[in-house]
């Protein structure tokens, strides 16, 4: 992992399209601003992880290949 020390209003550039800037430093948190192109997904990790967990808990239904067969029979 790359580790940088940054002060308020200093930034890090990732490639030529992404900028991560420290906006405010508090006692318990750091406010960060991210500038990225719209095709780069940016999420808080805990939200992404929560949705990932819910997806992993998705019901894996019994295989029903008759439906698959029906679909494939369509011209």
């Amino acid at each position, binding site marked *: 992992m790359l580790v940088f020390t940054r002060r308020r209003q200093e930034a890090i550039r990732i490639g030529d399209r992404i900028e991560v800037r420290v906006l405010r430093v508090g006692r318990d948190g750091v406010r960060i601003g991210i500038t990225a192109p719209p095709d780069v997904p940016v999420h808080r990790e805990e939200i992404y992880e929560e949705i990932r967990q819910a997806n992993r*808990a998705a019901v894996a239904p019994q295989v029903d290949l008759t*439906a698959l067969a029906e679909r494939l029979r369509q*011209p």
Partner: protein
Amino acid sequence: MRTAAMPVPVDRQPPTDDVREGLARNAVSFPDGIPGFEACRHFVLLTSDALAPLQRIESIEGPPAAFLGIDPRLVLEGYRGSLSATDLRALEADAETTLLWFAIISESEGVLYANLRAPIVINPQRMVGRQVLPDDGLYPIRHPLTTKA
């Protein structure tokens, strides 16, 4: 090639090349993937009378992955999902495009839930899909699935 008279395996045998080709033609691509199913980028939607109104969404590549989805409007009356400009661009859609919405169904300790927060949205014209991951929590990730649906 027509798929009309094609024999289809009725058990879990590896699909023949013909079946594989048929699946690929009907596959929806998810360029950004689905969290938790990172190895899968192409899924098919399978419907049957027995499963309706549930829809089976199954990966056609990578490790086996399948889940059930349901139109969130059937789960929660008045459900209004929203899409960002980024979502629309990824779906190659605009505000007028008719899109398919599916809440993924999960199970925990015997109770079924529908994920209304992060629905799967598919543009059937372009056969491209995406799981919408909103940062704000307007709808729950685990909304109990009632028998109404």
